[in-house]
């Protein structure tokens, strides 16, 4: 949240990425969310991730549904086209956009109400279809714009600001994504940018359906004692399985790790994920293991974070549909219209 407009002048020594852009070139309009909202940290992480990856801002399309989270695409990547669509229906709009032009980077931003309640059907089917996208759910367990109702990710037994105890079972979107065919699944916390930024970077490079469930506390309606989505609760119960570093193919690898503690994953675009193990022996290439781990730890009251699963040999929707390399929205008349001769031949068959 920023009440003050950002200064127009930029200091000359602001860092620039390989394209010559500063971080400012990846920022958007001023946020209108509450001061301290976790979502603003996620927006900042998106800005940093795109800056670090040298992504051309206009080659990103950002799409969202309805809700606090879905407002955020206005607050980052101001040089990207954005589409604030229909509540719970971002996945289909993003799918259509991805069909039209396979060469852009698609970033879907949604919330727990938008994805786990009204939009759970579209969430599920976009994962199944293998849409090449980064799908971020800014998960606070609560409806903010309508003032504090539980969402479908609120934990059973957690307490609302008004003191109501939630009696419904929660939906774990990360577990669902694993089951439904997402090939990059992570969970993170908006209060941990060291963890979040590399996870977003890894997702943007992934090449298939990448899903990140980001616990993002609602400071106004869900940050009290008794909430399981508050800053304090998430910090106390965060059980990270790994730390990720994303290394672009062109970068020099300088970091060194103690032997045996590192797992290296090369994604389709050549980007390399360095996964540092943290305590537990966790294998992020084992989808079934990931689902089990999530369930086991959740039963213990822990919130598992980190890169839960990655499959680097991914095929996206365009591969399934066998579409041409050139984006469909750039095919000219001559490639699309069969012309009058074909029609004459067809007429002859219909007599």
């Amino acid at each position, binding site marked *: 949240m920023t009440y003050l407009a950002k200064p127009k002048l930029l200091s000359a020594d602001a860092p620039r990425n390989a394209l010559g852009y500063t971080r400012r070139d990846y920022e958007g309009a001023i946020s209108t969310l509450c001061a301290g909202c976790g979502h603003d940290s996620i927006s900042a992480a998106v800005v940093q991730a795109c800056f670090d990856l040298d992504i051309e801002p206009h080659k990103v399309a950002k799409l969202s549904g309805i809700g606090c989270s879905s407002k955020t695409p206005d607050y980052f990547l101001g040089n990207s086209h954005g589409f604030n669509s229909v509540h719970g229906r971002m996945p289909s709009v993003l799918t259509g956009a991805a*069909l039209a032009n396979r060469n852009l980077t698609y970033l879907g931003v949604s919330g727990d109400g938008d994805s786990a309640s009204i939009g759970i059907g579209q969430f599920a089917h976009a994962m199944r279809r293998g849409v090449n996208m980064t799908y971020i759910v800014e998960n606070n367990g609560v409806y903010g714009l309508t003032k504090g109702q539980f969402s479908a990710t609120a934990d059973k037994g957690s307490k609302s600001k008004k003191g109501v105890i939630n009696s419904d079972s929660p939906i774990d979107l990360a577990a669902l994504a694993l089951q439904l065919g997402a090939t990059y699944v992570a969970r993170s916390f908006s209060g941990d940018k060291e963890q979040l930024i590399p996870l977003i970077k890894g997702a943007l490079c992934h090449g298939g359906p990448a899903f990140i469930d980001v616990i993002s506390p609602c400071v106004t309606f869900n940050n009290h004692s008794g909430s399981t989505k508050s800053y304090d609760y998430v910090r106390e119960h965060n059980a990270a399985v790994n730390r990720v570093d994303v290394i672009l193919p062109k970068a020099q690898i300088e970091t060194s790790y103690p032997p045996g503690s590192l797992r290296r994953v090369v994604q389709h675009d050549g980007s390399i994920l360095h996964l540092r193990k943290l305590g537990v022996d966790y294998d992020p290439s084992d989808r079934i293991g990931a689902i089990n781990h999530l369930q086991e730890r959740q039963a213990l009251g822990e919130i598992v974070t980190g890169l839960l699963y990655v499959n680097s040999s991914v095929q996206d929707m365009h591969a399934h*549909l066998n579409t041409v390399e050139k984006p469909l929205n750039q095919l000219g008349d001559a490639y699309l219209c069969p012309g009058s001769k074909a*029609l004459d031949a067809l007429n002859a068959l219909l007599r």
Partner: protein
Amino acid sequence: MTRVQAIQNCNDFVIKFANVNGSGSSSANELFARAVIRMGVPVAPRNIFPSNIQGLPTWYEVRVSEAGWLGARGGCDMMVAMNPQTWDRDVAAIDPGGYLLYDSTKPLPQSKFRDDITVLGVPLTDICNREYEDPRQRQLFKNIMYVGALLALLDMEFAAAEKLIVDRYRGKDQLIKANVNALRLGYDHAKANLPCPIGLRVKRADAVGDRILIDGNSACGLGAVYGGATVAGWYPITPSTSVIEAFSSYCRKYRTDPDNGRARYAIVQAEDELASIGMVLGAAWNGARAFTATSGPGISLMQEFFGLAYFAEVPAVIFDVQRGSPSTGMPTRTQQSDLISCAYASHGDTRHVLLFPEDPHECFTLGAQAFDLADRLQTPVFVLSDLDIGMNERLCAPFDWDDSRRYDRGKLMTYDELEAGKTFGRYLDVDGDGIPYRTIPGTHPTRGAYFTRGTTRNAYAKYSELGADYVYNMERLRRKFDTAKTLVPAPVLRNAAQPTRYGAIHFGSTGPAMAEASVLLEADDVHVDTLRVRAFPFSDEVMRFIAEHECVFVVEQNESGQLRSLLINEGEIDPKKLVRVLHYDGSPITARFIAGKIANALSDRKVSPITTPLRKVAP
């Protein structure tokens, strides 16, 4: 047969086939219809079928009409009764003096017949059991066999049907041989045992011309290919499913890259209609031509997205093949009952462009044109077909395409224009026609990007909840809708043989029945000018037509008079002036129905149909 004279008609009769669905009868019945066409005589075939896969009754009706009337006629001159389940009603449906062809293998009591019709029995099952071992073959060839018998009974050219089989199964000699053999068995049996020919006959004529026979859904799918559609998001629903099947099959044929076999199109079967229209809007927002095909229930489900598309100004094409509603209603029966739900689809103040094709030819032309209109107007465009056009083959003018035609992609601001510093306001009315300029994602690194929302924004797409910004936007959208009036296809006027103060307005699949009704009325000295509306919003010509007539019948296939309501609402017409002629039992409207209603209404008004000329006869 007693008392009643057997019907004697050449090239003008209705024959109906009563079958069980799933029995393979439809291709045999179609063979019959095409054999008549090959003799130069127009036919209008229609399927009457259940919402079921196998076992329920289904009918196929062929109207043979050298005069070229393609609307349903009503009545039945000859019944081919192949379904024991519906025997009684099928026999009862035959007009007095008509004919019954049936499978006489099993004797039926006299009480199962009528004494005012000609009964023609062929022991089809017997012959099949004698000729074929395989039960499936017995069933399939029984169908071909009764077509053979009909050729003999109706004095048709055997060679015409034989040639059709050869054309259909070209390269598959075994199939050709087997089918021709079955056809011959039926033909020979009828010749030897029945009073061939009967009173109904087909005589070679030259009344078909270069017309083609195709169903409207195939034509819509082809129109989408020619219109440049590359993305289709859809969900299966009768009677629209075959639009996508046709699009898919024509795309495989015409849009497969010859070098690498890859697809210049993408078709995604969505999880529901909400997702299908969502995909269409996403693709169209991103600069591809995109469409969906659906029917009434799908239109209901898509409502929220239609509103967003209208206000966010995203082009989209929706083929709505109308049927009886609701979801569990009459999905396999025809209606024109989605006009209101499409014209004003969604919450908020919305109004949409609708196109009304009359036949498969217009399904193709208006289908292709819809994509230009959607891009030009940056709004959803609905092509409102119906089951009668969509799922029945119809004789129509051949398809044509002007190779010099280029797609109208509308007001797209390019990289060069942005680079040159041209002002970009996404919702700014630069040209005064209400249509703003848009940019496609990825156009320019630093200019022309915008955040797409519904209405909480100003002309530059910046967040705004100001009333003045909202009003500016709504007034511009109104101007845009006025512009649409000048771009949509014009109505088609048909003046009566002599000047009259009566008019009739109709649209879509009512066309053929209306044209025939005019002729029936004229024979009774009742004269009515007709206007076929082809689009909403209504052009000035439509309102002029109403103004020029004292009384205007609005002929449509729904219960509430939806076109009439739209005319009253949009044209501020006195409701008394527009008289409803409504047909809505799920069967296609007939000329007899229209003519009867109009004649009755005029006699109720106690006015002489011949009135003082209000205009001179057109030279």
